[in-house]
């Protein structure tokens, strides 16, 4: 059948080459089934397993950070002299002659 569509013409020409490929018997390569089964035996990690593994790996890291913060002197906090007790100050002012 004649067609004005260049794609259909090209596909028609290419089909002659594709057909033998597609009709060739699909013989299973030697050891194919064994390779598939060996892949099945290897457990594939699911999303939940990945998160669990990640969380487990984070535990020692978190513990180390906690210890580090506990041992470190509080850098942000300025060391001020203790404030005199306000009540004591008031008593001194009242009692003073």
């Amino acid at each position, binding site marked *: 059948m004649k067609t004005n569509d260049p794609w259909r013409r090209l596909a028609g020409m290419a089909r002659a080459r594709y057909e033998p*490929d597609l009709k060739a018997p699909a013989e299973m390569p030697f050891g194919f089934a064994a390779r598939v089964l060996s892949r099945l035996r290897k457990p594939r990690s699911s999303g939940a397993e990945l998160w669990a593994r990640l969380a487990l790996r984070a535990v020692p890291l978190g513990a180390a950070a906690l210890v580090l913060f506990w041992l470190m002197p509080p850098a942000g906090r300025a060391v001020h002299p203790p404030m005199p007790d306000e009540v004591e100050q008031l008593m001194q002012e009242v009692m003073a002659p």
Partner: protein
Amino acid sequence: MHGEAAKAPGLAADASADITAWQRHGDQDAARRLIEALYPCVMSIIRGRLPRRLAEEDLAQEVFVRFFEKLDQYDGRAPLSHWVSRLAVNVCIDALRAEARRPELRWADLSEAEAEALRATVADSAAEAPDVAASDLTAKLLDTLDAKDRLVVQMLDLDGRSVRDVRELTGWAETAIRIRAFRARRKLRKTLLELEKER
């Protein structure tokens, strides 16, 4: 689920027994028989539908790994071969997407023979064009399509399958297949004509 599958009309009795043996007892021989029985069906989907740089065997392995992993989801309503071919189609789409080249095809990308095939195609002197060059040019054109469009066009225009066959193999609606084919062919025609103008 395997109980239902075993009673399903779409499943040959021996395949059903093998599925049960694999699922209940992990019977390796049963699994081997299933792979052997389904291998031609899987290869008919994979073969000729992928860029040549992708290895057929690797993809076939991936299909069977998914097959065994998802076997408990098979409810037996569709024939086992259809269910497996849908898995194979999805593996092909994933592989094509992973490649995700979709380059813009330029005149300079064509070999001399491919350029001759293009000239013969556009000038409607098909008899002059060598099949090999036409096939190579077709492969390059298909590389410019989206993965699903590519599969639809290949099945319809190169394998000579009907829309109904494609529906059974992919599980997509017939209307969706027709629309996809229409858009993909329009894009291919446009690319062919633009290439010819570049000459």
